[in-house]
């Protein structure tokens, strides 16, 4: 019975780490005052590029770097269109999603129909490098040790990125300048902060982080990773929702990933839980799995409305979000 709970905890982490990458990446972008609705597409491109090149080079490091760079290039495109050319952020972001997801499927199908077929992960060094390993000592903690401390390296990387990003925002001067741009670009500009450079740099970095999240899905979430079977499906959109739930804080994004992950796992494992605890949790089977799928969006909608009803001061939403900054407007 305890194994069921341990497995449940384990799965919360394994299957929801992409949310953490997507969310932290999007937080970085939104903190610069840009709303990028292209998370889904950016993750897809990072996934396919990192996976394919990673298998070719047979190295996790290469895979991670390539997915970061590929998605970073998508971020560069977004920055160029919205920061330099002042294009509408919503439309640009949505198009990145359309384009990125289509690119993913397209390449997937084309490869699946080609001679060698879609390259498999089995028996590669890449697979070995990305496999779960138990952290000595910590993983021996009864009950939670195995669930929390025996994962692939990308799980820990995601957590480290979230923690570092929190430190960056709250403890460093560039982080402060970034937040100032998201709040009031004209004020930051008047203090000599290079608004254009900061926006480009952070949109690119945030997009790159999302890309690693895409790659993770290919390496660590099991199953096939082919054109017709896209893992990205919805993770990007949940990430955008999670940014709101996490109130634009990378630290709360960690917590939020666990909360949204909890419902996500409940969807898959409600039967197992109900079977293990028939008296206490038997009712779980009566709840349709679709409800758990929709729950992140329902919660976010409620959070969104509730926070607009209450005073704005506590919200972490950057005040200048979604508006392009043009110096001569001031």
């Amino acid at each position: 019975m305890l194994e069921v709970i341990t497995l449940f905890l384990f799965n919360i982490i394994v299957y929801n780490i992409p949310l953490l990458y997507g969310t932290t990446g999007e937080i970085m972008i939104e903190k610069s005052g840009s709303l990028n609705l292209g998370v889904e597409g950016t993750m897809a491109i990072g996934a396919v590029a990192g996976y394919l090149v990673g298998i070719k080079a047979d190295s996790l490091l290469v895979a991670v770097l390539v997915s970061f760079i590929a998605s970073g290039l998508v971020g560069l495109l977004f920055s160029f269109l919205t920061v330099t050319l002042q294009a509408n952020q919503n439309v640009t972001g949505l198009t990145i999603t359309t384009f990125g997801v289509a690119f993913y499927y397209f390449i997937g199908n084309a490869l699946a129909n080609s001679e060698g077929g879609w390259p498999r992960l089995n028996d590669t060094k890449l697979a070995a490098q990305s496999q779960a390993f138990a952290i000595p000592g910590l993983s021996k903690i009864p009950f939670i040790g195995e669930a929390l401390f025996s994962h692939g390296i990308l799980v820990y990387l995601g957590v480290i990125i979230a923690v570092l990003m929190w430190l960056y925002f709250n403890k460093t001067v560039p982080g402060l300048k970034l937040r100032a741009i998201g709040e009031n670009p004209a004020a930051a500009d008047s203090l000599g902060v290079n608004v254009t450079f900061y926006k480009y740099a952070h949109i690119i970095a945030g997009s790159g982080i999302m890309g690693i999240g895409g790659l993770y899905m290919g390496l660590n979430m099991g199953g096939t990773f082919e054109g017709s079977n896209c893992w990205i499906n919805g993770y990007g959109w949940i990430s955008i929702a999670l940014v709101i739930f996490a109130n634009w804080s990378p630290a709360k994004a960690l917590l939020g990933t666990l909360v949204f992950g909890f419902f996500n796992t409940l969807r898959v494992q409600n039967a197992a839980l109900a079977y293990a605890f028939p008296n206490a949790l038997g009712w779980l089977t009566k709840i349709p799995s679709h409800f758990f799928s929709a729950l992140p969006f329902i919660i976010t909608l409620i959070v969104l409305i509730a926070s607009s009803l209450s005073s704005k001061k506590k919200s972490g939403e950057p005040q200048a979000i979604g508006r392009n900054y043009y110096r001569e407007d001031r």
Partner: protein
Amino acid sequence: MEYAIELKGITKSFGPVAANKNINLSLQKGEILALLGENGSGKTTLMNMLSGIYMPDSGSIFIDGKKVSINSPEDSGKLGIGMVHQHFKLVERFTALENIRIGMRDAGRFMHGADVRKKIEDTAAKFGFDIDLDKIVANMAVSEKQTLEILKVLCYGAKIIILDEPTAVLTVQEIDRLFDVLRKMKEEGHSIIIITHKLNEVMAISDRVAVLRHGEYIDTVVTKETNEKALTELMVGRKIELNIDRPVMEKTHPLLEIRDLTVKNDEGAVAVDHINFYIRGGEMLGVAGIAGSGQKELCEAIAGLRKIEDGQMIHEGESIVGMSPKKILEHGISMSFIPEDRLGMGLAPSLSITDNMILKNYNESKGIFVDRKSAREEAQKVIDRLEVVTPSTETPVRRLSGGNVQKVLLGREIKSGPNVLITAYPVRGLDINSSYTIYNILNEQKKKGVGILFVGEDLDVMLALCDKIMVICHGKLQGVVNSNHTTKEEIGLMMTGTINIVNKEGKTDGIAKDSAFTDEEVKA
């Protein structure tokens, strides 16, 4: 003599309008220089060239005797220049400490080393600032925000500090405290330029006064050797005879009467403070005052766009307080306000002249369709009568030049046949010829018996054009004077708050003898 700043032959134009013409100005080390001039005399433009926001078209800038070129706010900061803008540049949701930290150079990449805080606290202590570094800016009072802005530039090591109208938002006690700080800064060897309109403040704080007028440098005088009257003369200049008609009309009963009107601005501060005035038919009443003395709020309150806190407004005997903008318009009060960006209020810039013509009365035609046919005719009439230069009636207003935009706006206001016309800055940014066209349009209306409230900037124009001039200073009525029996100096002194003639002559308190107000209404 070593100068902290020397400006030689600075010229700056925006399009056809020259904001600064061949300006020479010097700031001695360790002095407080007051920069004096009317609205639009080019003070802020000149200072923005020092803070790196604009670049001069020609001329040179010397700092500590060295010729420099200032291309950005960063360059300006590195040269030791700090500017406290009139509109604060603060991130509202950050603390004071964080706001200072954004622009701090050479203090490392990590946030709050104890040394950073200490450095700021030391600076604050040195100049006698009382400030809570951990307070969120959004929770600060205006004076605290200003203190923060000043502390900010001091922490960045500025030796030359420019303050753009710092006293405009402060109470008397706060101004005293600010002046103490400025004197302290002077003792510490800082050089200061302060922009202000208030002559008593100039006399109280400055060592020397430099005067600009219409973008030109007039003179610099030593404060001790001058007085308020002499400064006013320098500032407003000799009266220039303008060839503007002022038809004298038979005046009718008061059309619009305002009693005890109090209005707050967007920040919640009192902008219009218990003002009384009235306009008769066939009369043009000028409103003179330093920019931001409550003109905008006054216009918006009358047009029904801004809630009033207190007071009464009656139009032809009927109260218009609480009426919707539409109702007020139907009553015959028409308002046009040319904001500083000239397109903000009153026109939809992307729409055609035709579409802008019917902005206020599109709903009057029958049926569900907009009557564009007569709108086009109206547009053509306005274009013909006011000589609007445009390719066609279907050209978007945004593509017209400034003068033509203003003609379209005024043309529309007149076309609805109002009996009270409120017009604010109708000639803002226009060349002489366009301005005269506008004056003629207004005079024609006056001849028809319309009562006109003319909110203006140029005293010469107002003296020539208006029958009476109402002067306000910080939202308070300073008095109403007859254009034939006043001088520019008198108005200048009233604008700067030096003299107030309300209740002094009995007649100038802004209350009509034949008021439509009943006694009960006045008491209520």
